[in-house]
Structure formats: C-alpha cells, structure tokens
C-alpha cells in the first residue's frame, strides 16, 4: 500500500519535472507509505512513490521497470491474483527479477495492453509510463478502493493518490469546484471524474485513461457494477448458492491474509460482516490473529458486547479503543485533512483513531467487512425502498407503511407523533415508484437540505451549471434490472465508492499507514453476488439472507440475529458541548464564514447557536434532528476543507528531505539548471 504521484509532459515543450517538486509531492502523502521512497525521472516524466512494504519486502521497491527499462510503474495497492498471473506470463516468455505484484502489472501490460486490467483481482491506483512511446496510462480498480487524482493543463499532467500532492505544486490554482460541492451535498461524495477541486479530476473507478504523445486522451471504462438478468430460473438452489458464496468468500479472505509478507489483522464492528470476515481470516492462517474494535462512551453507539463475543469465538488478540465526543472534536481537523472533502457525519473520526491503534500495535494491514451491505443488500435503504415500492401500489393503505416499524423498531415504541411524521417523510415522492433513483430519493433529498445554507452567490453559480446527476450516466441496461439491483448499483457508485471506502476507509486507514483489505469487494465475490436473485439477498425484509446462512454455525447466533445497527458516532453534539475545541467557534465565526464565502454567515451562525443552546440545557437538551446534525457537520467540515486546502494557498514550506531507496534520474546534468 502506498502513495503515488507524478508529473508528465504530454507536450514536449516543457522542461523536465523538477526533482524538488516531485519530492514535495511525495512528501505531502508520505504517511501512505513511510517505509521507502522512490523517484524516476526522464526528460518528460517524473514518478514518485512512497512505499508501505507488505509484499516482497526485499525487492519490491518502486518505481519499477520492465526488462529493458522502457516501461515504468508507480503503483498503490495489491493485485491479489498476481501469483497466478505471473505463472501465465512466465509461460508467455516474460522474465521476472522480483517477487512483487508490481512487476506482474508491468509484464501484464506488455503482454495484454489495456486488456490486462480486467484480469486483475485487486485494489489499485497506478501509473505506467511508456518512455519510448511517451504514453501515460492511469488505472483504478473496479470499485475505487485506491484513490487517484489527475490534473491536466497546458500539455502537462499531474497525478497523485491525493489532491494535496498535486497542490504541492504552487502553480496549481486552489479553488473549490461548485459542481463537486453540489454533488457532495446530495450524494455524500463528488462523482468521478468531478472532484471537490476545480481543475482536478478523480479518475473513475474501473477505468483506464491513456495520455498519448500526440496530445490525445482516451478513457475506457472496463468495469461497472452489473446485475445480469438471465432467462429462466437461477441455476443454484439457496443451499447450493450458500455453499458457493461461502467458498468464494473464504478464498477471497485467504488471498487477502496470505498474500502479504506481514501479518494481517481484522476490524470487528460487532456486526455480521466483520465478524464473518474475521472468522475467515482467523481460519486462513495459523498463529496470533489481531482484532480491533471501536467502543463508544455514548451507549447509543456502543457494540462492545458483540465485539467481545466474536473475539472470544475466534480467540483473537483483541484490542479496543474507547472513543469520546471530545476525541471526535479533537481529531476532526486532521480527519478532514485526510478526507479532502466535506463529510456529513463524524463516523470517519473514530476510524482515524482506530488505525493509529493498529499501526502502534505493529500491524500494517487489516481485513474489514466493507462491501457486504452493498453486495448482499444489508442496508436499511434497500428495505426502506422495498417498503416504499409496496406502499406506492396502494398509497392510501395504513397497513403497508406499518412495515416501517419492523425496519425501525424504535418507531413501534415511539409516541404517535414521531411515527406519524416519520411516515410523512417516507411518503414524499411515493408517486415516483419505479423511476430510477426512487430508492435513494429520501436520502438525497434530506442531504440536499444542507445546500440551503450556501450563499446566494454559490446557489446561483450552481444553478447556472448543467446539472451533473448520477442518474444521467446510468448504464443502458439499468431499467431492466429489478428494483433491488437498481438500488444496489446507485449505492455502490455513490456512497460505497466515494464515502465508505474513501472518506471512511482508505483515507482513515492510510492516515496511519494501514492498508484495508476487503474480501466482499473481491472481483469474483462481487460478480457472484450481483448474479444472485434478489430473494437470496433480501428475503422479504430479511437483509443479507444468504450471508446469514453462510455465517450460521461459525459466528455467535446473537450476532446473526441482532437487529442491524448502522455504524454511527456522536455528531453535532461533539462540537458544541461545553469544552469543545476553539477551532469550531473560529471556523464558524462570521468572519471565517465570510472569508470562505461558501455558506451564508447569518444562517450558518444561526444553526451553530441553536446547536450550542441545545447542548447547554435549553429545550430538547442534546437531541438534534438529522437535518441539524448533517448541516453542522457538513458546514464545519467544508470550512475545514477550505482552511486546509484553499486558504493554505501560497504557504511555501521548503521541500522536506526524502531519502530515496530507488532513484533513477535520466535527466542529464546540464539540463538541471533549466528544470521547472
């Protein structure tokens, strides 16, 4: 796991990229790979790499080249099937110098060109530089587990694992992109290729982009989530499908535990997915198995009982971290420095703290259960959508919406007023049943309310742009999928890709140099899950039906049977209770809000004061509506993004010293004086 960055002159009128600049770029993301550093440079390209050594510790350094030194790579991630691909390539006549997966990519590209990427089962963001053809190839894994940002301007291309490495070049303008911001406050993420920053693109998950010497750029999407609709009955019985899923998951987990030359641990949330993942991880290898859990001081969010039960079941060496509201507020600025985008909940913050515990305990890679809810329909949004579909067929029915009480048991216990109003909420847009986006309408609508706080100027600017809606870019076959598959697709391309495995995943893990490995996002597992009939995934309202059968007998029944608890952390309250850190009031001051110019200062202050009053014993003490929680966290995190990345423009700290283990500099000495 690593950090990558580089500058390539696609037009040859530029001087070679400066080594100092490349060093600043890699230094900006050095936490992604603090073990070793590498630099390659020629007259047109510079590639840098920060390495977190997990595979082939001795000879896996990067940048790395093919046999004749014409094709260079910097690579962040893992190709889990590299052993099998290597055998295939050796049979084709390729000779290998190392035992790394990185070298397999180079030879696979030589052998198959862009067709190599669909053969990879893994998680990657990479850049290949063909120094003889002057061609730059950028690629990302199917789901976008590993990040990659690109800027193209004036015949030059910058790329990096994180935007901050591109901003290390002081010539790059720093501006918030109104379109990316608008998307973030609907989908919880900008939609690649848009990003939160103007002029910087996020490479689409599942795509390859090629910049050629003639100045052209071609992008190919080699993979998108797809839910095949075979004619006739699904060939496997539930029993057979359970068996097949179990085998595939175990293989995916084994690959993720064994294809590492360091020990791999596991997160334990207390839920079904991570419990099963940890159980399979434990089974994959002899010896000590490390597990890690977040506990909350607020009982509402705590799942200790289930975490401990699972740790005891697999006899792991278990470590816990207790998170308080004050911890969340304290680390939040660092969290946003890593997410590089606004977030609407604080849930990433505890994971930022947990990855530090993992690193301090000497573990560099962890398994998590991420992806199970998307692949096998675990989330409430899928069940909610099914109930709303069902209700929409008889909107006058009072029996049909009563099903919501099965989804949200608190409703059954709530006073009538809460129940009635909750139903009013879900009733909105019921007439849109069957239309794309119906499943996500309540969430998107709710999130979009935060935009009311935007300044008039920003609202006008957004309104003047062509809308960039996720529903505009749907695959042609989308309308042929069943309603569950449609909802799953939208969930994968928005929340999973851009938030859960990014803001709450990669960024929080890599902040402390820990790699996440996700068996449920294995290429074969995803393919298999997407081919399952809806009823195997969501049986009535029983979520992850087939997965519960896989887990049965391996993990405690109490975990399988428990009501699904979404992972949450204390939100607004963390920032407004007495003793909250001073930066909160500073960034939400009239002057800071006006300075950033994103939110209406009066409105944002009004919200902040309301939240403060509620924390200090006013009416409704400590209870915040969903809208207030999301708005406060969204506004504060946006202010932090502005503070870290926009306002910081012009800060030119000298490039820190980096000791390169790999240094290939092909720029002749006499050229050095002229580098830019």
């Amino acid at each position, binding site marked *: 796991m690593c950090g990558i960055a580089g500058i390539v002159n696609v037009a040859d009128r530029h001087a070679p990229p400066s080594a100092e600049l490349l060093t600043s770029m890699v230094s900006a993301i050095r936490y992604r790979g603090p073990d070793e550093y590498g630099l390659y440079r020629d007259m047109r390209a510079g590639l840098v790499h920060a390495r977190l050594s997990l595979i082939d510790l001795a000879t896996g350094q990067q940048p790395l080249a093919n046999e004749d030194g014409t094709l260079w790579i910097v690579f962040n991630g893992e190709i889990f099937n590299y052993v099998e691909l290597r055998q295939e390539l050796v049979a084709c006549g390729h000779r290998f110098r190392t035992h790394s997966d990185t070298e397999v990519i180079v030879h696979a590209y030589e052998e198959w060109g862009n067709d190599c990427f669909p053969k990879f089962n893994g998680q990657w963001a990479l850049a290949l530089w063909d120094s003889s053809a002057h061609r730059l190839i950028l690629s990302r894994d199917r789901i976008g587990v590993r990040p990659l940002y690109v800027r193209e301007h004036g015949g030059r291309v910058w790329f990096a694992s994180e935007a901050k490495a591109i901003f290390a070049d002081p010539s790059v303008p720093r501006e918030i992109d109104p379109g990316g911001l608008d998307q973030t406050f609907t989908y919880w993420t900008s939609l690649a290729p848009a990003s939160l920053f103007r002029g910087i693109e996020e490479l689409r998950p599942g795509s390859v982009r090629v910049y050629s010497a003639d100045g052209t750029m071609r992008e190919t999407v080699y993979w998108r989530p797809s839910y095949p609709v075979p004619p006739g009955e699904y060939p496997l019985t539930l029993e057979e499908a359970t068996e097949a899923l179990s085998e595939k998951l175990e293989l995916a987990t084994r690959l993720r535990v064994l294809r590492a030359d360091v020990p791999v641990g596991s997160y334990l949330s207390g839920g079904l997915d991570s419990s099963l993942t940890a159980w399979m991880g434990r089974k994959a290898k002899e010896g000590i198995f490390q597990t890690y859990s977040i506990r909350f001081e607020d009982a509402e969010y705590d799942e200790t009982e289930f975490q401990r039960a699972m740790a005891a079941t697999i006899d792991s060496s278990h470590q816990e971290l207790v998170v308080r509201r004050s911890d969340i507020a304290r680390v939040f600025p660092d969290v946003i420095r890593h997410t590089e985008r606004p977030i609407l909940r604080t849930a990433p913050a505890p994971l930022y703290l947990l990855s530090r515990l993992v690193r301090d305990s000497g573990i560099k890679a962890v398994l998590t259960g991420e992806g199970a809810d998307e692949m096998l329909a675990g989330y409430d949004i899928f069940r909610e959508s099914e109930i709303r579909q069902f209700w929409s067929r008889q909107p006058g029915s009072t029996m049909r919406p009563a099903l919501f009480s099965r989804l949200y048991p608190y409703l059954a216990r709530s*006073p*009538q*007023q*809460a129940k*009635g*109003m*909750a139903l*009013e*909420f879900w*009733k*909105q847009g019921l007439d849109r049943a069957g239309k794309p986006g119906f499943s996500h309408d309540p969430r998107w*609508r*709710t999130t*979009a*309310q935060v935009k*009311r*706080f935007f300044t*008039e100027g920003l609202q006008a600017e957004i309104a003047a742009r062509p809308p960039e809606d996720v529903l505009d870019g749907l695959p042609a076959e989308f309308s042929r999928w069943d309603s569950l598959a449609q909802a799953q697709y939208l969930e994968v391309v928005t929340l999973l890709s851009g938030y859960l495995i990014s803001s709450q995943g990669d960024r929080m893990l890599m902040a402390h140099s820990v790699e996440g490995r996700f068996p449920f996002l294995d290429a074969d597992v995803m393919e298999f899950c997407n081919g399952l009939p809806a009823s195997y995934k969501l049986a009535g309202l029983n979520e992850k039906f087939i997965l519960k059968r896989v887990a049965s007998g391996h993990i405690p029944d109490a975990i399988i049977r428990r009501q699904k608890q979404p992972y949450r952390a204390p939100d607004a309250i963390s920032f407004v209770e007495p003793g909250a850190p001073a930066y909160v009031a500073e960034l939400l001051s009239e002057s800071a809000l006006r300075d950033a110019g994103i939110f*209406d200062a*009066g*409105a*944002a*202050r*009004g*919200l902040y004061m*309301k939240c403060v009053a509620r924390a200090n014993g006013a*009416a*409704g003490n400590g*209870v*915040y*509506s*969903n*809208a207030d929680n999301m708005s406060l966290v969204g506004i504060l995190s946006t202010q932090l993004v502005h503070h870290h990345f926009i306002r910081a423009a012009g800060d030119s700290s000298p490039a820190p010293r980096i000791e390169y283990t790999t240094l290939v500099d092909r720029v002749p000495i006499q050229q050095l004086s002229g580098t830019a």
Partner: protein
Amino acid sequence: MTEDAIRTQVHEFIRKNFLFDDATHVGDDQSLLGSGVVDSTGILELISFLEETCKVKFADSELVADNFDSVNRISAFVMKKQAQPKA
C-alpha cells in the same frame, strides 16, 4: 391569539430554527415536509413550540401532516383547538 398572530409566530419559529436566515421565504401554503424546510424531527420541535406558546395539547391522532404541513394548516388547526372547550 388571532390566526394572523399564530401565522406570524410560526413563521418566526421556522425562520429562527430551520432557515436561519431572512432571505428565504416560506409560503403560507408551502408543504414544510415536502419542500424539506423541516424534517420529521423538526416537525416535533415545531409541535412542542406550539403546545407551549399557544397553550394547546394535541392528541396523538391529530399529529398528521394534514394538520401541520403548512403554515396555514397549522394556524387553522391551532385556532380550531383553541376554540374547543378544554377537556
């Protein structure tokens, strides 16, 4: 309290607690839930406010959108409640 006075109070409460600004105008007949001005928890804030300010008590069966989903509906319903003899 007159119906106009109730309307004014409700507008003021919405402005202070949900909109936080003077620029946005909520129409008297605008659906509060439908337009996203107020979410389902927000409506509960509004109901508590009405019970306190207007000295009325709402029965569970009355807490439906028909009675609360716009400023006009709220003011009309509160008027009706105030006219009822106290139980």
